[in-house]
């Protein structure tokens, strides 16, 4: 646990907290970007270059842009009058605590199940690529098929209906 880890952890947590507490939706989207960037840096700190850069490319490059577009196109960027906090926040807190407990339990179990290795295995991008199109090619193809189906579905939903009853 180096000081860098703590700095990154504080950055990520601050971004995450800000994204749920800030009032303005676009500010929330930008705060969540900070959290994503912090996560990417954590990956890089763990020497996982591929995961780190993929995190930036996918989450900051695509997911945040998508969120921002959705906010702008739905005019959600105006401040709501009756506050932004949901009335059922205790339930949300309960669910979040439960998820955190399950994740924490799983992480603690994994330490016991897989004993700490002395040396970190060096995984290059090349190895990841070979594994993706070699051993894990079926899951990759299934994901690709799912995404294609989703894209086609989105296009069909958005398509102009040419035949209209007059």
């Amino acid at each position, binding site marked *: 646990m180096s000081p860098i880890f703590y700095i990154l952890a504080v950055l990520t947590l601050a971004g995450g907290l800000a994204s749920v507490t800030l009032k303005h939706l*676009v*500010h929330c989207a*930008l705060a969540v*970007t900070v959290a994503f960037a912090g996560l*990417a840096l954590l990956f890089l700190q763990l020497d996982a*270059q*591929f995961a780190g*850069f*993929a995190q*930036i*490319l996918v989450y*900051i*490059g*695509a997911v*945040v*842009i998508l969120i*921002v*577009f959705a906010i*702008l196109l739905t005019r959600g*960027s105006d401040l709501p009058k009756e506050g932004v906090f949901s009335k059922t926040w205790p339930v949300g807190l309960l669910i979040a605590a439960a998820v955190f407990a399950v994740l924490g339990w799983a992480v603690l179990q994994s330490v016991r199940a897989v004993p700490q290795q002395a040396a970190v295995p060096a995984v*290059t*991008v*090349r190895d990841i690529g070979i594994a993706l199109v070699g051993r894990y090619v079926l899951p990759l193809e299934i994901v690709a098929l799912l995404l294609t189906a989703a894209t086609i579905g989105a296009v069909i939903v958005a398509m102009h209906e040419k035949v209209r009853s007059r």
Partner: protein
Amino acid sequence: MAGKLDQIFILLRDWLAHFLPAALRPAAEVVLGVIAIVCVFPGLFALTTVFERKGLGRIQNRLGPNRVGPFGLFQPVADGIKALIKEDIVPFSANAGVHFLAPLVLVVTVFMGFAVLPMGRNMVLVNMDSGLLFYFAMGAATELSVFMAGWSSRNKYSLLGAMRAVAQMISYEVVLLLSAVSVVMISGTLSLPAIVASQNTYSGIWPHWYIFTPWGLAAFVMYAIAGTAETNRSPFDLPEGESELVAGYHTEYSGFKFALFFLGEYLAMFSISGLGTTLFLGGWSAPFSFLTLIPSWIWFFGKVMVSIFVFIWMRGTLPRLRQDQLMNFAWKFVLPFTLLDLLVTALWRFMGEGWARWVVCTVILVAAYAVMGCLGLSRKDIGPRSYRYAE
């Protein structure tokens, strides 16, 4: 001697670093590399602005700037001083924090991209295993800064410009990535110095650059189109089309913040040209085997400047596209063609050496281009234009 000249910057860096204690040397070398990048590219930017205005002037049959210094060469100095002493205006209803951050995010992320570009033999700041991925990750982050600028200004022109810019950048980024993937498929690595090394061989006097293969040429053309759109250059400069949107997402920026946007735009142009050079034009390798005596960095910067010249040339020549034409072009022509090129690249990889793969790949690409062009033309009803005037 030639070898020394080739490595002159590396030697200079080592010489400067040896004044420091050994423990500090690696850090000092990185800092010196960063200083070099931060000085060289803005300097190149200053030169390019004169070059561009002169070139555009020549194309449009006028003189261009010629008042400051010999041939107007000191124009960027005057512009820089003007930008520094101008009042920095932030609109009353603007979101001040985001408004302030946007140009910084843009310039910082664009500068980060230069970290992985090999600008000469051994001249790369960070030799990363996944350098290409890093480059595209940084490129994706620039979109956010454009959005931040447009949204925080609270100006409808800014917001419209930002929306256009983000839509355009997302559409063409797909193509940019896919055309780079074909190079990765052949060279089998994401590291940019390794990609250059794989092109740095010669048969006879001719180099093995990827642009001299059918798939490489097609990928390079698609890359150039997508790169022009990514950097918002004419004919894809809709996000800041001044006849429609004043200045797009940076309408509400003045003084040095505007200068930062200007800088970011040109730096993005350099870095896209640098990446294109690295991927398709052999990076720092010489165009003929007997020219390898000339230092590698001269070749890299020479190729980048030629690309910049093509950018300027296109700006002076082509009219601006319309938004729907831009989107249709991206999704109905460029993207399918790039996907087809990926298939052709795979075919090239597995057909083995020999002339057969040249014929097959060329025929597939030319036929696809012809068919798609004919289909695209037949769908349009080209005839006399009809105009509607305000009544």
